[in-house]
């Protein structure tokens, strides 16, 4: 699955890191490192991370879209 974080919006609250610790990590004071291509099996965790973000910076591809458009 595909994920992108708007790092203009991100303020390093790190709530995503609690929701999906294997895929979001804060380095130093507020540098977010995240996995833009987590496995589909982790979707529930990634969606929780998205919902937990206080500034709504995380965008997640809905299931099945790339396959639909794969022409």
């Amino acid at each position, binding site marked *: *699955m*595909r*994920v*992108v974080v*708007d*790092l*203009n919006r*991100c*303020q*390093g609250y790190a709530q995503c890191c609690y929701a999906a610790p294997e895929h979001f990590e804060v*380095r*130093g*004071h*507020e*540098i977010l*490192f995240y*996995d*833009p*291509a987590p496995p589909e099996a982790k979707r529930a965790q990634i969606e929780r991370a998205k919902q937990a973000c206080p500034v709504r910076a995380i*965008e*997640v*591809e*809905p299931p099945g*879209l*790339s396959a*639909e*458009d794969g*022409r």
Partner: protein
Amino acid sequence: MTDADRPGCVVVGASLAGLRGAEALRDGGYDGPLTIVGDEPHRPYDRPPLSKHVLAGELDAHATALPQLCRLNARWCLGQPAVALDRRRRSIRLADGTQIPYERLLIATGARARAWPGDGADLAGIFTIRTLDDAHALRAALAERPGRVLVIGAGLIGCEAASCCCDLGLAVTLIDPNAAPLARLLGSVIGATLAARMRTAGVDLRPNTKVEALSGENGRVRRAHLRSGETVGTDLVIVALGAIRDTEWLAASGLAADPGGLTCDGACRVLSTTGEPDPAIYAAGDVARWPNPLYGDRPMTVEHWGNAVDQARHAAANMLAGPAAQRPYRHLPSFWSSQFGVNIKLAGLTEGADSLAIVQGTRASHRFLAVYGRGGCTVAALSVDQARWLPAYAEAVAAGMPFPPVLGATDQPRIETLAPGFPPSRPVSNGAPLTRETAHA
């Protein structure tokens, strides 16, 4: 003509701007044919990680593919650049000769890295960082542990690349004609703070000089010759001299396009060389030069992630709106960069700033919020590891508040004002404004 035979909407540029623009057409209710053209073979991908985590080897370059946020039902034409636009026939031509007709066209062809312009450009071991393939190739070369990496240009990309090379334990020399890294963007006072971090990290930082030529042995780059007469030994060169907008393909289109961008009106409709908007063609992202109402309608291009997203969505909405419902695009430029362990974010434009004030934190702590002033107005706000303060100051910038803006929770009894130390502005060549960093060579 059935609906499927209509030319429909065409997006040129399978980029962040192209993808978000295409999504916005669907979100806006457009259900006709949609074609997306891209010169690279890849689906739209995210560039910011390329100069950071991809070089560091933490992410595969191909993992940066962008999420698609809604169903596009698009026809993708990837791997062929657009080479011509015929506005009379409402058609674009691709390099392989394919003609793609359009009813509405969104141009999001962006920019490409400026190649090394001096002697030695044909040597092996010289890299730029712009595309996924660039980053993939550079990552592979860094994994071979070159003895010394030379980075030419201390703009955002050059500094991020130098930071990654340091993290990889490689010896790095960073050369820039200005007094400090990021001096054009942030001034040499803030640049000095970053220079201190770089030197602590072990970077051989050489400000106030230029690389005049590169030379090599057996076809591989080995040395850089500086203006000062010094020579720097190197095994790998990263050229970070900014970008050139991809507008050559529009040369015969009759549109107002040059290496500085494609000129648009306030609604993001492209203008002809005689200044008439073409109601069928819009532009967005790095390539678009438009009059920004936030800056008194001064024409500008903004080569940042947030503008690619916002302008593409705005242009798409106007593409679907009638002539009387065209809305002007108003944008506060902003960017982020992470390098040498700190997170740097800017809102606003520092260009022409005459004063600087640290309003939260201290430079010595390397955690602060600074504001830039011009003629008594606040024009930009910079956060170094103080991102939570930034939105409040960004609002002050957008509102053109007096400098320095005094917001509720200032933690200092007195705000000290400094000269920001910007380099002199560059000469303008061919009437086209130079992009950042491009005057290096």
